[in-house]
């Protein structure tokens, strides 16, 4: 069955090769006349005031953490959902408990205001 994955690998390689070819094409066909002003970072015509690796809003970080939690939950749901037709009642109860805990956590996040952007 692993042979079925060969085209996947080839397509991934081709995807990357196409990307690299396009980069090379742009380098060959396009002009290449760098100068200081042209190569400076775009900031509405001003000189850049400071480095752009600046502090950013912690909420982005919070979203990333919440994403990891929920994505993991989804990962656990996947095999259960695929095998659903062969599962006993106990498996349903187990998943109900699992989703129940997830929902409690979700309500907690909501009440704590972790999901608010304002």
């Amino acid at each position, binding site marked *: *069955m692993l042979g*079925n994955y*060969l*085209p*996947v690998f*080839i*397509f*991934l390689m*081709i*995807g*990357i090769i*196409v*990307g*690299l070819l*396009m*980069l090379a094409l*742009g*380098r060959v*066909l*396009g*002009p*290449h*006349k*760098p100068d*200081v002003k*042209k*190569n*400076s*970072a*775009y*900031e509405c015509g001003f000189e*850049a005031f400071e*480095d*752009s*690796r600046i502090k*950013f809003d912690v909420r*982005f970080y919070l*979203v*990333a953490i919440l*994403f990891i939690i*929920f*994505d993991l939950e*989804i990962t656990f*749901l*996947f095999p259960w*959902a*695929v*095998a*659903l*037709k062969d599962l006993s009642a106990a498996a*349903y109860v187990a998943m*109900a408990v699992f*989703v129940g805990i*997830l*929902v409690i956590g*979700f309500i907690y996040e909501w009440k704590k205001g972790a*999901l*608010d*952007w*304002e």
Partner: protein
Amino acid sequence: MIDQAMQSVLGWWQLLPGGWRLLLWNTGKILLVMIPLMLAVAYYTLAERKVIGFMQVRLGPNRVGYHGLLQPFADAIKLMFKEVILPTNADRFLFLSAPVLVLGPSLAAWVVIPFDEGLSIANIDAGLLYILAVSSVTVYGVILAGWASNSKYAFLGAMRSAAQMVAYEIAMGFALVGVLMISGSLNLGHIVHSQNGGILHWHLLPLLPLFFVYMISGIAETNRAPFDVVEGESEIVAGFHVEYSGITFAMFFLAEYANMILISALIAIMFLGGWLSPLQGIVPDSVFAIPVIGLLLGHGIHWLIFKTAFFMFNYLWFRATFPRYRYDQIMRLGWKVFLPITIVWLVIEGLAAYFKLPPWFN
């Protein structure tokens, strides 16, 4: 003459070692998907400008070729001959690898799409998982692009884009769990098969809320209007690709449109029965035996293309219709509306599956 040429080509083919034959054969199949895909992307950009033009009572591009039909090629050639600017402060390696990282996966995801009965490049059992994995790589490309540019607009755009894509991936993931519960397989071909038996058997009806969640999340995932704060022109110029020019910009552009087509095709496959004909079970089976009409009305790739085209048109329609969402509204929609809807619907679906609700769960 032609016969001789065929003979010699066949001879050469036989002479090749098995490994090379396999590689070339697969490459050929991949090109058969990739070239039409590229053409579809090219004409999708033209269709976007035309459709939105007509919706705003303009003509859209109509100078290059007959009614502007050559416009996409003019654009592509123009972009190719433009200079690729490497900003001084940018991390050169990451700056150049970001577009590759965005474009590669958006093409490679097509390897598992089933176009017709048994017609897919790779018929793998983890198809949906593969698509999820590959489309997540795009987020890395976007973050890398924004960070490596070392420009404030690009950085802000990348942060926004990453948070938005990540938030909507949750809703999408839960919607996919719903699809898996009803079809019982990650293989996209099997998912279509599980919808066999007429329009009522399609997943659209039992998964209606998940269908809408997936469709709207798909628009947010691809950073399209009305969720395009990522490149909100009025605030952060062009978002994460503000520093990209020429062909590197074209690569982000290509990837975005390829992803839009991919999401449309996935919606068609997972909720609307892929290549299955909507007339199945409505008209008598004898109709499908009539030579040409039967072929047109019966199952086939043309139905998949038609359904995909409908959702592709939706993208353009939404863009012309809805004003842009504010960022806090986007996050609220993703976390506080879609996530609860999907969880509730999974519970309902679980109950339906437990009691073997016909016709979908028996």
